């Protein structure tokens, strides 16, 4: 029977924690090495440090950098929730895409499948990449490192937006600002792009105008969408069913969370059901008004008079209040339930608008464009000039690697704390990404999924009970006649509707994973149905499962008496269920070595029957066969 694979499966959760712990140790180790190296370089090489003044980072950029740095760190911590490794693809990624067009589902499900093939590596990589980007943004205040941090936010934000948020749901029919359209991660990208702008753009009010104008157009577009008839937002209830907004709020209220928050959301859902038209009218008017107010900030760019400052300020305050209300009452904070991946779109959106507002009146630049990280190293190099020059004759006679390390070490010693922290952040990202990248080169799933479903293989050592049965081609086959080959043996019902076809595919998959070694292996199934055991049925099953082209596949059957004896010898139960139920039989696989000894027993309930679980069982079977082949 199908046992399923729960999100909080103890094996997967333990493996996920273990992976995080191991990678966490590496992260701390890298930190320690960097710190020791940096302090050492400063103490021993005594590089000169920059004394050139740098202008202050504008407030808008600080807000974006630190704000989104904190959000990325929060997202990374949310990714470390126990259910994430197993649950993200099936509970978050695929449901998010369910109402989108087929092509979106294909794209998103591809990512979900990739994740589910290597859940531990994928889950851990998401944690470290997001923590790393967060630290990177917070640490890198200026210069190349800081701008690169912004670009990293854009890149990973796009990955999250496309695969994790199904393009923010912009292709799905229920698109609405109230529930986070066009996706939180798109604002992460926008913020990253702004952070990555060169310093020469920092001090012009045009940047603020551009940001507010774009956001203004966005709000107006969302107002039009919200007002569009026929989408169910104007009705609290419709023909006895909940309207679109009421239904969405209702589903959020059912998320596991502290009762006080559920109560707020639920109360708003009831209010929306009773006053659907008024709620939507308010949303449309508020979105349109905020959009118009923000758009007006761009008027000077088209030669018109700038609006009064109070208008922009008032609009931004109204937007912040609306975002906060939506975040609490409709988006329900976004991160509850054990599978919440981020605080949803309102906070990032508010940060972007607020940054745009602050950028309208930037602080004047105090110094020419300076890149501290680079500049900090420059004087050191400049100061070191005489020494370098003095060393020229020797250097000319030596390979570059003999001279470069000293220069690098001096440059490293001259780097600021922030640059060292940013370098550490990059290392965190790499520590997270590398195992996942490595796992992706393997097209087979991790065997831990099979172990999570059925536990570990049990080692055995006894002489396999003999049998003589008939294969799908009518030939007599005995256990003795298969001596010299490793046997993967299982018991299948040819008219089974779920587990047996999956197990057959797992055997077929194992044959493919074994590759050339498959010549030394025989895949053997014995019928496990006391009523339907004629050869016509083993043949029909083979055709159904495309096993006819597998040369080392044998599907054996015999008389009921013969089969019952084999079932007894191999401890197989085959129970006839009443009233239209299929045969309930033991799902098991044995590995029998070339000398006819049973060496391994694998519980073989195939679980949810997904591509990843099937592949995982194939790999588990292959590894068991290879182990027996090695030891025999």
């Amino acid at each position, binding site marked *: *029977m*199908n046992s399923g694979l729960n999100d909080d499966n103890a094996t997967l959760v333990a493996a996920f924690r273990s992976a995080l712990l191991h990678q966490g140790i590496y992260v701390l180790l890298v930190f320690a090495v960097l710190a020791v190296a940096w302090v050492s370089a400063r103490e021993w090489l005594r590089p000169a440090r920059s004394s050139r003044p740098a202008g202050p980072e504008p407030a808008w950029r600080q807000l974006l950098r630190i704000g989104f740095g904190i959000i990325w760190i929060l997202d990374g911590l949310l990714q470390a929730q126990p259910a994430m490794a197993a649950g993200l693809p099936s509970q978050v990624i695929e449901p998010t895409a369910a109402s989108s067009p087929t092509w979106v589902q294909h794209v998103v499900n591809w990512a979900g499948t990739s994740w589910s093939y290597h859940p531990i590596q994928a889950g851990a990589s998401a944690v470290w990449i997001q923590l790393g980007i967060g630290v990177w943004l917070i640490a890198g205040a200026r210069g190349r490192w800081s701008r690169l941090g912004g670009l990293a936010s854009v890149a990973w934000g796009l990955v999250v937006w496309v695969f994790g948020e199904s393009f923010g749901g*912009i*292709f*799905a*029919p*229920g*698109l609405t600002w109230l529930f986070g359209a066009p996706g939180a991660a798109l604002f992460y990208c926008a913020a990253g792009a702004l952070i990555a702008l060169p310093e020469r753009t920092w001090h012009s009010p045009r940047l603020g105008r551009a940001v507010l104008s774009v956001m203004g*157009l*966005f709000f*107006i*577009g*969302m107002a*039009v*969408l919200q007002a*569009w*008839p*026929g*989408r169910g937002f104007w009705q609290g209830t419709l023909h006895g069913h909940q309207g679109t907004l009421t239904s969405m709020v209702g589903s959020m209220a059912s998320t596991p969370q502290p009762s006080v928050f559920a109560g707020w959301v639920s109360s708003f859902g009831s209010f929306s059901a009773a006053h659907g038209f008024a709620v939507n009218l308010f949303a449309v008017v508020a979105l349109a008004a905020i959009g118009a107010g923000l*758009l007006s900030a*761009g008027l000077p*760019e*088209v*030669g*018109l008079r700038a609006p009064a400052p109070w208008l922009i300020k008032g609009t931004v305050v109204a937007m912040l209040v609306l975002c906060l209300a939506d975040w609490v009452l409709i988006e329900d904070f976004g991160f509850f339930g054990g599978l919440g991946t981020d605080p949803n779109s309102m906070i990032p959106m508010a940060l972007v608008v607020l940054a745009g507002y602050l950028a309208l009146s930037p602080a004047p630049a105090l110094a020419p464009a300076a890149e501290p990280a680079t500049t900090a190293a420059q004087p050191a190099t400049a100061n070191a000039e005489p020494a370098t020059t003095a060393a020229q004759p020797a250097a000319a006679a030596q390979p570059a690697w003999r001279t470069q390390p000293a220069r690098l070490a001096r440059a490293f010693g001259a780097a600021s704390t922030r640059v060292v922290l940013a370098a550490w952040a990059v290392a965190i990202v790499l520590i997270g990404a590398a195992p996942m990248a490595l796992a992706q080169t393997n097209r087979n799933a991790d065997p831990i999924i099979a172990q999570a479903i059925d536990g570990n293989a049990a080692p055995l050592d006894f002489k396999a009970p003999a049998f003589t049965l008939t294969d799908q081609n009518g030939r007599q086959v005995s256990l003795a006649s298969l001596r010299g080959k490793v046997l993967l043996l299982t018991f299948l019902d040819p*008219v*089974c*509707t*779920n587990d047996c*076809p*999956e197990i057959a595919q797992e055997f077929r998959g194992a044959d493919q994973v074994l590759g050339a070694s498959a010549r030394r292996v025989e895949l053997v199934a014995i019928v496990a*149905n*006391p*009523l*339907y*055991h*004629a050869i*016509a*049925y083993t043949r*029909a099953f083979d*055709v*159904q499962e495309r096993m006819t082209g597998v040369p080392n596949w044998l599907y054996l059957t015999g008389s009921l008496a013969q089969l019952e004896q084999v079932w007894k010898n191999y401890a197989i139960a085959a129970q*006839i*269920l*009443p*009233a*239209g*139920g*299929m*045969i*309930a039989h033991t799902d098991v696989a044995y590995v029998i070595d070339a000398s006819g000894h049973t060496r391994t027993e694998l519980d073989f309930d195939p679980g949810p029957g997904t591509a990843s679980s099937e592949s995982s069982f194939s790999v588990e079977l292959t590894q068991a066969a290879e182990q027996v082949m090695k030891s025999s």
Partner: protein
Amino acid sequence: MSARQAGWAAAGVLAAAVAVAGCGSKPAPSTATPPAPAPPPLATSFASTAGSSWAVVEMGGSAAQEEDFWQLFVLPAGTAKWKLATPLGVADNGGLVVASPGGESLVTGFRPSQLLAYSPLAASSDDGASWSSAGPVNSGLTSAPDALAAGPGGSLIALTSGGAELGQRLGASWTRLSSTRSLAATQAGRACGVSALTGAAFTSSGTPILAASCSRPGVAGIFADRGGSWSAAGPAVPASLDHQDVGVLRLTAAGPGLIALLQAGKNIVAAWYDGTRWTVSAPLHAATLKSTAIGPGGSVGVILNGSHGATLAGPGAAWHVLPALPKWAATLALGSSGQVDAIAANGGTFTDWRLAPAGWSLAQTVHVAIPYGSSS
């Protein structure tokens, strides 16, 4: 950016928003022609030549398809109590299709479900008291009460997605009798505009008969295999309905002849073939059918959507509308003495209601242990 350019940009964004909104708005109502009438659900009952009654009903009441299992009940000749006779060993949550070769024999086909892609068969020669497995149909039986037909000498016709398969006897290999495409390419098929096979039967002399939905109005798609070529063998549709698309909902052997149920627009018509000619009933107004029943002597019973039912005593008789049916009525069962039963199925409870002058009265209840969870 000039004011003009900014205006165009704003208009562009608004247009995009409108387009996106359009993606989520309701689709326009379809103006396509309605599909050809499809066979009714598999719930049915029939009378064997030995006088036994059989009923096929779905039980379980679960929203999950794989948790609802089909059950076969028999009321053996000369007895008053229905008995559970579902063949064991195969999950029947995809549906059961039955065919009677005559006497106390019955062949049952299991429609594929979940990962099972072909149809196992079970045969009984003692009114369902015992069953043995028979050779499978190598692809799945279609969802039609007459997807399996049994003829003299043990021959069988099985309707599958590929077409009609002929087995000379139980357990023998299958050969292709016809496909939808090849039948549609015959002269008779072209006159009908065959769109799908809906049923199969044998005449008493063993001639294979196929039923199909026609895309040409006013043509009843019934075809006989006359020495390897297919010819039209259906009844003429009443003139009042000859502008409608006609679907053959049921086609089964009845005594020495055949009985067919036709749907023409929103009308149901029964037709009887006595070996030489067809007799056609008056139409019964009914948009869709919930189940059909074939009784002794060419009697017919139908349950319409809702709780309405009607019967026809046989050729030349008029439709008799029944009192409101009991709750959960799944099919009617017609007895040889004109007795009408309504078989109700709710969860694991099978209930037989008998029609008396005062209305429906409870005749029997059978509790069935539905194997919930066995296929999930």
